[in-house]
């Protein structure tokens, strides 16, 4: 607490009365018991989906024709590298969480690697991205520092947020990865505001916000869609439709499952694209980004995939119908895209293998390094609440 200048004037000669500062030790931090998290499980009960992701993809609104507009081999390699990195980090996190060596709420991104990489491929460092708790793919695709992300997930001082934000709130402002929210739908209006700033700046930078299918039920989504369209903001709404919101399949929570179709109600351009196809997604994102850069306003992109894992790192997903999951797993984006690159001769197998082993080594190094890093010291306790930490001391 800071001594008040007014009080000094009014009571001259009397010592300032600031609150006693509280000791740093003796305060408990709660450790989350993973056995408790395990009991967060749903019980098994499969039910038939009312429609499949295949049907949704067939019913596409895509403006681009991937067969005509193929990506360059260099771009395909960039896509693959990004996808591979996302998959490697994601797998490692899940492994650590399940082993109990990482005690955190984490949200797997398996199945989203291609669509996240496709967004990243089309963005410049000055472009901005707002994500959710399921943020790992977005964070890496936007070029965030791997070391800083992993250290953050382990709650270390060298983490992107000094260990204060954690896995659900990854960010790397230095590369335009602005924030990740844990509140469903709450990042969407924030992206609209970043769009306002870009527009006021007269800049051609664009803003992407990612969110799940479930977030389209939140009021803030609808308010933001209208605002972005009304003001013709350079915002791209990327709806990662993995067909589930926690335990609920889309057809059980949405009267209309045509999410891309909702954009029409706001006079906004939209497209639905097969999110398991990174090239198709990249081309669709490119159309949206170019539209936004030209000042022609926002786009709603429905990226259709399927949740290939449990909702969170430890949750079971036996309630997901086996056949739908099996068919979706056949299109698991990383191995599928790898096969496609080899078949099309985009790069020799040896080169792809080289990328794989490079990334594996990078990821190993980042995890080993994070574990060596210190936790934030007590001197960090009251920093970052306000610009001036003295305001907080003693409270």
């Amino acid at each position, binding site marked *: 607490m800071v001594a008040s200048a007014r009080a000094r004037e009014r009571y001259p000669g009397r010592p300032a009365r600031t609150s006693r500062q509280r000791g740093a030790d*003796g305060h408990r931090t709660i450790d989350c018991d993973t056995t408790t998290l395990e009991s967060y499980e749903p019980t098994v009960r499969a039910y038939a989906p009312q429609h499949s992701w295949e049907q949704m993809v067939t019913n596409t609104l895509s403006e681009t024709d991937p067969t005509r507009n193929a990506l360059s081999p260099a771009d395909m390699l960039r896509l693959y590298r990004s996808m591979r990195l996302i998959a490697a980090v994601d797998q490692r996190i899940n492994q650590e969480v399940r082993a109990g060596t990482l005690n955190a709420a984490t949200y797997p991104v398996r199945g989203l690697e291609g669509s996240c990489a496709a967004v990243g491929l089309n963005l410049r460092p000055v472009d901005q991205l707002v994500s959710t708790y399921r943020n790992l793919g977005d964070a890496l695709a936007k070029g965030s520092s791997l070391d800083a992300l992993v250290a953050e997930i382990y709650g270390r001082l060298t983490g992107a947020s000094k260990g204060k934000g954690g896995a659900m709130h990854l960010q790397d402002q230095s590369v335009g990865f602005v924030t990740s*929210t844990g509140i469903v739908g709450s990042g969407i209006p924030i992206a609209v505001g970043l769009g306002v700033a870009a527009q006021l700046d007269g800049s051609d930078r664009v803003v992407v916000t990612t969110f799940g299918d*479930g977030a389209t039920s939140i009021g803030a989504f609808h308010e933001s869609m209208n605002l972005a369209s009304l003001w013709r903001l350079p915002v791209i709404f990327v709806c990662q439709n993995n067909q589930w919101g926690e335990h609920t399949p889309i057809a059980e929570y949405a009267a209309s499952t045509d999410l891309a179709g909702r954009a029409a109600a706001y006079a906004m351009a939209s497209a639905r694209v097969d999110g398991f196809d990174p090239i198709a997604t990249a081309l669709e994102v490119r159309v949206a980004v170019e539209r936004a850069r030209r000042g022609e306003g926002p786009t709603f992109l429905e990226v259709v995939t399927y949740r290939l894992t449990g909702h969170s790192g430890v949750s079971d997903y036996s309630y997901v119908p086996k056949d739908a999951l099996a068919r979706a797993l056949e299109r698991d984006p990383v191995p599928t895209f790898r096969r496609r690159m080899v078949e099309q001769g985009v790069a020799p197998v040896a080169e792809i293998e080289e990328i794989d082993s490079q990334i594996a080594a990078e990821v190993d190094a980042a995890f080993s390094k994070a574990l060596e890093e210190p936790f934030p010291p007590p001197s960090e*306790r009251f920093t970052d*609440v306000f610009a001036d930490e003295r305001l907080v001391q003693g*409270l």
Partner: protein
Amino acid sequence: MTMAAALNSALDHAMELDDKVIIIGEDVADPAGGVLKVTKGLSTKYGTGRVRATPIAEQAIVGAAIGAALGGYRPVAEVMYMDFTAVALDQIVNHAAKLRYMSGGASPVPLTIRTCIGMQRFGAQHAQSLEAWFMHTPGIKVVMPSTATEAKGLLASCIADDDPCLFVENFAMVFSQKGDVPVGEFRIPLGEAAVKRAGSDVSVITYGAAVHTALEAAEQAAAAGISLEVIDLRTLMPLDWDTVLQSVSLTRRAIVLHDATMFCGPGAEIAARIHEELFEELLAPVKRLGAAYTPAPYAPSGLPFLPTAADVLAGAKQLTG
């Protein structure tokens, strides 16, 4: 029986007793039965008409529950984490809490909102104890149990109550708290604190998860020759001032303890009231203990946040020293 099972039992009996009791919230219907399993089996037993799983739409969940209450039902709305009550705050604060008053008594809202405090390890948006917001809003009752048995009895009373009640659970306690919970219908009246441990030197006034911190401290204090009386408020509005003031007038020393932020926390009101009523009898100023004035830090180590038993013990030594 775990607290989860105790809550389930309270809901089950309430639904059986009164067919106007309905449940509304995300994933509350089977097969999920609630993300914490609290509503397990109820949609199977009472149907998805009365146990309604919703989209992710907290404003609509609480708003629709208010509407159903005005329409003659007794809804139990679930907002998964207390942090998400922020999304529905307009409905809770401007409507649920005010409709009876603004209508001159014509529109009571017999609504229960169940919500849950998360964990520091989930990050700053899944760990907040926001009860002071609601205590500061005239017209809504606030209930925070610390044991499985009390969870059942208090939830049953909230559902039967003719006013809106915010019933606050705790993620860790939903699983860790187990007890011999009475089977069948069972209620604990709102507004009655429980003395969880009798003592003569210092009254520790607390509620929710912090009750267990206080009980742990009381063990340690006993070993150090200090006798702590632990008072579990159980309901914060209405608050059992009689028990609080009686206890403190006997011990003449008090600590108020909670996991909510200390600054402007519930303890500020309680401490002020004790000072007003018992100023002459006190041997020392009331000591407040609460969470540090920071968002919940994610780091598992290094950034102290919640008050510990050691803090309570140190406080008790300071007051008696």
